[in-house]
């Protein structure tokens, strides 16, 4: 098997060049999820070495439908950097991605450290603010097809973030209506309850899962809780917006 470092270079280069690659598991069918997290860490380390800053983590595969689709029992997580931030109300340059999709999410901003096994109460007490957000997910694999080790190695498809205005953590985020609209018309409709039944569970899982890799959620970090509906494939010329009950709106314009 090629070294993990070598595979990390492959996924990192695919991301930089916005070029689709074959699934890693095609040539390396024995690649484990554990190997995949190591590849992810190595590839993100390359980004950090280029000057990017870590800003938090994202949770993926947080809905029952997605877990069944990928054939897993547990969520996955990825690392976020400041280079992924897009200006709210600004432009998503489609050519900078392979095949970007937009996903409606809830994002937490932390004011306290969370690491390892934490209770829902501890997780809640660590939240400084909540905001509506869209994640640009962009699998570097051909046709957006992957097995679990592939997607984990590919930093769980994270590639962009659009974050709205921060709101009080007092807002109950358990069951907020979420509407993703394209050019003003509703395209995907759901509820924040689709995120592991309650987005706070995603935060608890984020603390536990990242700790397994020696990481902690630090004050100032953000945690993207996971998609609440199917992701929308972005097309040039579209304005994609997300409205979340009690949290407000975010939007982005897709250009070539």
């Amino acid at each position, binding site marked *: 098997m090629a070294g993990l470092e070598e595979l990390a270079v492959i996924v990192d280069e695919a991301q930089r060049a916005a070029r689709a690659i074959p699934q890693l598991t095609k040539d390396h069918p024995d690649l484990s999820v554990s190997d995949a997290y190591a590849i992810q860490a190595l590839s993100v380390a390359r980004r950090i070495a280029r000057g990017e800053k870590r800003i938090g983590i994202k949770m993926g595969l947080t809905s029952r439908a997605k877990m069944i689709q990928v054939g897993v029992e547990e969520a996955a997580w990825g690392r976020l950097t400041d280079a992924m931030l897009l200006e709210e109300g600004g432009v998503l340059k489609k050519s900078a991605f392979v095949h970007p999709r937009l996903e409606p999410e809830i994002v937490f901003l932390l004011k306290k450290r969370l690491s390892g096994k934490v209770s829902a109460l501890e997780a809640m007490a660590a939240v400084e603010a909540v905001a509506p957000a869209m994640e640009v997910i962009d699998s570097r694999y051909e046709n957006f097809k992957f097995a679990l080790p592939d997607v984990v190695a590919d930093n769980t498809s994270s590639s962009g973030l659009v974050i709205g205005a921060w709101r009080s953590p007092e807002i109950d985020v358990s069951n907020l209506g979420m509407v993703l609209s394209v050019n003003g018309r*509703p395209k995907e409709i759901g509820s924040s*309850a689709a995120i592991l039944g309650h987005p706070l569970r995603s935060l608890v899982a984020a603390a536990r899962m990242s700790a397994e890799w020696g990481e902690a959620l630090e004050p100032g970090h953000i945690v993207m809780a996971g998609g609440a509906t199917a992701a929308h494939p972005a097309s040039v010329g579209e304005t994609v917006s997300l409205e979340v009950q009690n949290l407000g709106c975010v939007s982005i314009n897709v250009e070539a």
Partner: protein
Amino acid sequence: MTDSIRTAADRLWRAAESKEPCKPVRDLIGDLEIEAAYKVQEINTARRLQSGRRLVGRKTGLTAKTVQSQLGVEQPDYGMLFDDMDMPLGSEISAAAVMQPKVEAEIAFIMGDDLDDERLTAADVTASVAYAVAAIEIVGSRVRDWDIRIHDTIADNASSGVFVLGDAPRRLSEIDLRLCGMVMERRGEPVSVGAGVACLGSPLTACLWLAKVMARVGRPLSKGDIVLTGALGPMASVEAGDAVTARINGLGSVTAFFTD
């Protein structure tokens, strides 16, 4: 009245009485206008009323764009609600009695006024809703294996079964009809999620459509009527033993229990 309409009504009526699902009725009325399917429904509505049932409300169905396109239509449909379809909170619902039950989470309106003029506006309907409650509609089909197309479901009273109304009534000014989140859980797993906007853009729009049609066809909405406005998310299957809870943000929750 053509014979085929009468025959279709008889087929569905016998299925409902015997609890033995029947063939679809589109072989009889499928080539006719949609109105023919409503005529079939009306025959059985009259039968139910003659048998002593009371008309207590209406439902709108096919209120999701995705469901409309599956059935190849561009508008909702409607069905009649009778007193014996109202399942009190906490009661056990017989899955067999409903016939092939499935569940949908909805917002129900209780009307505070008569709406007997079809020249209605959204403002009229807004002013006429006394209150909203969370509801679970347990739809069923007299047609074997839910093998339905548009004529079949309309003829079959819009696949109505029974319903459970929540007990946290709210005025419209207290809730967000469009953005309220909905989650329906079965055995602790979310089996359906959605929001108010999934129902024709707003449950109020569904109610307006219904109120106009009801005034036109001579069964206008009256004070006290229950309106099941339409699903806020995909329908889910249920079986005996299940407890299904729907939570609608601002309207509390409602649970339906199922037995054999």
